[in-house]
């Protein structure tokens, strides 16, 4: 289930407990989510799912829902 794998990645990259990541997690409420960590997030997601995230999408992945949607699209 992509959902829980995404949460694992986010938990590791932003150094927060797994149970603190939920549907509403976004750059607004995760303190450590700055632009440098955002790049690490992209790298980790690409490695985890074996996809390449297009340039235009990189900046859009600012919350859990958008990440889930985009990954689901790419993994198809």
């Amino acid at each position: 289930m992509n959902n829980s794998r995404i949460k694992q990645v986010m938990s590791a990259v932003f150094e927060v407990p797994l149970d603190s990541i939920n549907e509403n997690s976004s750059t607004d409420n995760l303190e450590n989510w700055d632009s440098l960590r955002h790049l690490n997030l992209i790298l980790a997601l690409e490695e985890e799912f074996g996809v390449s995230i297009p340039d235009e999408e990189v900046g859009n992945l600012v919350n859990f829902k958008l990440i889930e949607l985009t990954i689901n699209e790419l993994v198809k």
Partner: protein
Amino acid sequence: MENLKYTEILQLNKQLSGTISSAPYQIGILSNVTVNAGKEILEYVCRKNQIEPTIEIGNFDNIVQDAALFRDKNLVMVFWDTLNLMDQVSEFFEDLEEDTMASFKQKIYSELSMVFNNLSSTPSVIFNCFSSAYYPINVISESKTHRFVSELNRYVKENAPSNFVLMDIDAIFQQHGLSQCYDQRFYLSSKAPYTVNFLKHYMVSIEPLLLRNNGKLKKALILDCDNTLWQGIIGEDGLEGIDMASSSKKGVFFHKIQQMAVFLSKRGIIIGLCSKNNEADVLEALRTHKDAVLKEENIVIHKINWNDKAANLKAIAQELNIGTDSLVFIDDSDFEINLIREKLPEVHCIHVPALISDYPQQLLKNIYKLFNLNPNKDDLKKTEMYKQQFQRESAKDQFGSIDDYLASLGIELTVLVDDAAYIPRISQLTQKTNQFNLTTLRYTENQIEQFMEHPKSFTASMFVKDKFGDSGLTGVCILKEDEGDPRVIHIDSLLMSCRILGRNIEYVFLDHVIELAEKKGYSTIRAQFITTKKNAQVKDYYEKIGFELLRESEGTKSYSLNISTFKPRNIQYIKINTTLNV
């Protein structure tokens, strides 16, 4: 670690953070590209080797300026990538006029020179060679880009100071493929050219340096026998059934392993055996098998019995007077490897790979990482010296009192001051000595050289000889004059190899050092004891010498000694020379 996913590395790193209580290893990263994704990977590599890192990444593309700021770090890593360097040129590089290219080159040379200058006194620097792998190759006539890059690299090789280690990232590109290492997309959007894969491989390849700089290199390689040193099980297949022949398809790999073990033993690494077998069987194999390369004389210690291997390894460490974290253990058994990983996690375990053809390469990779392959004279004699130690131990039983026994040894000390010929060994001792070490300050050769050259500091090195043999340079004392009061001198470092302890040498050496200080005109000596996990045995050493305890706080004790009132121990049976009789 290369098999771990980036996410897993991040998680493991987080778990390890805060668990290592040694002084932080200060690392500075200078770069003209974004390498931030590598920070956690580097932290993990350090932490899994019990090194606690503090990593500071310099401002983006500010290598020259930040080099000055980072000069006092323990380690500086320079990622000066060709990509962003070439991007400074807006014209098509191949079309550049020769003189434009020349002046650009000079500009880079002077920047390189400034960086070399600023970092020449840093304990350790890792500098990546420039790579031209990013650019298409012109097979017919070398492209200007390629030529330019090779010229830069030549300049670097010719001018980089001795404390620089030059990393060839092209080798990583070759081994794993440029497309796996270079992400053009991210370079263009965020100046981050390196893939997570590349960063993993890179950090693994600098691991040996991290280990060496932090005194984490290993001292002993302990091997299992069956299916580790030879193919087969001697208890079942017998002497004829086991195979270690270089001509045999299976045996050849084990043959190479034995050659590597011999290679290591010649370089002062202790080779030992730990096997569940009949001792007689194994020794017979080593002595009589026609294809055996590893001989009994290469082996310093063995535990061949039916006991639990964790206990055996512990005993080995104890008898050698080294920590279990200085051991490397090879075994083919899942069970044994898991047991040691659990019971003695600080022992570095190598599991013989399932695909036996991978075995020699695996071991060689580990050898490069874990052992110092450039020993000095004393290292080479070590195997002999451990044997001598066993002899000494057995001789002890003959004598009534300890003093009589010690007197019978005919111990001779030689103390040399500021002798530059011994800088490598002195530096090595500061990095490896853990137990008889009062302040546990680690120094590179660079730094020892600086101490010797400085007029207000002096370094005493102690050589020990007795009737059984010559232990060589086994004691170091570094003293520095006080910055405010020229009559006061501080003992910055005092350490002795555990090999020569227990013979009162530790008291005689310091007596001599104090005498030297007095001759140089000092009236007061200050000293410190800084607690670590391993040096509890010298907690009260200075008190025993006769120093006065000034204060004690948070694991540090500060002392002072008034030279004029000092009474040396005057142990007559230990002679002191001040020249070396080679």
